[in-house]
């Protein structure tokens, strides 16, 4: 198995990684509002709408609710953005990485589990019925997508024989994992949309509960939580590149450019899919997750294990 040589860059480069992540998150938000504008017949506008709402939210005064638990509310809202930065720390950009963690895949999983706490805290802290309902909806979705996601993460780790993200990328020099682990890839993307509270998993912020977790959030709190959702979507899309899409492999362009290109494509697909799929009802999706997705992920792991054993 070829060793990928990753260079761990000095911590100062984290600023650049943060800027790239924010740019990707902004791209996702801009693409979404552009698609919205087109769907509503407003023509080609909408690309700059996220910038205007950022400015508006920065100027907006914070509303507060009687006996809101402000500490938990702020932790929940701001934590989403912080979590997405923690997630990209282990994603190699071509040959460079911020942290070449020997358990990078588990690190990714740990950060995505933190979203469980953060969304619930944001819903709870607001001391509002709609917020709490939203928080519980998220946890119900979490119970449905998290275990399939964990087993989907196992597949590339088994094939690479390592929990290091760089090793997973390096083990795909002949065949990308997505080709022979399609089920794991799809379930991984379902998990990414899940922990980003995005598209089919947006019931926690649904309009039918007045915005759910977002119901009482205003100003900067609302901005960081929304930005965190897009940033998580971008981070999850970026993580699929070393895990399933061959990392920086590709002709002509340098490796870092391929990572960015693949990330943008996956991210664009995830954003585009939002209009194609209904919101999954948490109670309905729970059974789907456990009866369909979980066995599919375990079967995928079995296939991968057999191939690895057979190839010796």
């Amino acid at each position: 198995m070829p060793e990928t040589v990753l260079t761990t860059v000095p911590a100062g480069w984290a600023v650049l990684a943060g800027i790239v992540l924010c740019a990707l998150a902004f791209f996702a938000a801009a693409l979404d509002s552009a698609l919205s504008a087109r769907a509503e017949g407003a023509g080609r506008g909408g690309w700059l709408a996220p910038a205007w709402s950022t400015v508006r939210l920065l100027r907006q005064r914070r509303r507060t609710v009687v006996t809101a638990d402000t500490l938990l509310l702020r932790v929940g809202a701001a934590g989403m953005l912080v979590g997405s930065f923690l997630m990209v720390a282990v994603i190699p950009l071509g040959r460079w990485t911020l942290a070449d963690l020997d358990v990078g895949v588990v690190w990714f999983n740990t950060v995505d589990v933190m979203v469980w706490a953060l969304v619930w805290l944001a819903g709870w802290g607001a001391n509002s019925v709609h917020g709490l309902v939203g928080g519980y909806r998220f946890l119900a979705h979490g119970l449905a997508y998290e275990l399939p996601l964990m087993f989907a993460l196992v597949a590339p780790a088994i094939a690479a024989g390592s929990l290091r993200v760089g090793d997973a990328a390096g083990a795909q020099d002949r065949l990308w994992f997505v080709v022979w682990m399609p089920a794991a890839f799809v379930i991984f993307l379902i998990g990414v949309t899940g922990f980003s509270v995005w598209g089919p998993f947006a019931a926690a912020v649904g309009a039918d509960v007045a915005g759910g977790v977002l119901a009482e959030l205003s100003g900067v709190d609302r901005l960081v939580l929304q930005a965190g959702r897009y940033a998580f979507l971008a981070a999850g899309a970026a993580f699929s590149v070393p895990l399933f899409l061959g990392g920086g492999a590709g002709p002509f362009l340098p490796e870092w450019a391929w990572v960015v290109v693949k990330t943008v494509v996956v991210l664009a697909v995830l954003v585009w899919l939002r209009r194609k799929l209904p919101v999954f009802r948490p109670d309905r999706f729970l059974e789907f997750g456990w009866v369909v997705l979980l066995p599919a992920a375990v079967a995928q792991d079995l296939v991968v294990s057999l191939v690895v054993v057979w190839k010796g």
Partner: protein
Amino acid sequence: MVAAIVFWGLAVVAVAAGVAVFVVDSMARATYALAVSFIAVGALIILLQQSYLGVITILMMVMEMAVMAVYMVMFMGMNPALMPMDMTHGKKTAIGASAGVFVLLASGALLIPWPERRGVPAEDLTNALGMEIMGEKMLVMAVVGPVMVATIVAGVVLAAGRTRYDRLGDDLRRRPADDPQPGGVGR
């Protein structure tokens, strides 16, 4: 030097968050104070170069606390979970017991003659630790795992109020099943 500062910082966070569990008057705060304490302990384990164990500790504990929050609010009907409350009870006994245990453990840690390190740490510490704990018993563990899962499933089946005959009819042929909570795959 840096490691020592990080160690003491994390240790203080772990203990302070642990104390906070019993000081705060809200169950949500208590739950997540406990989570913060566990996260600090997980980071301490990472500091011992057991990255897998450390990261997995953080993962498990955060998830556990999130699930605990669900049950806490769901089952505490009258609602200490929503109103300010005191997280302690049986104070004198509890304080006495915990102070006694602390003195015992701390004096043990301070007074025991610690052995000198022999040899060098293994290349892959997590693997070495796993071999040390499991060793030749791995096959036993691999067998016990499915048995435990089967026990859990059997326990749930026995405890459930509704049986498969309630769901699928007397001849088990009713489709879709008669579930109080409709599922997502239309069985």
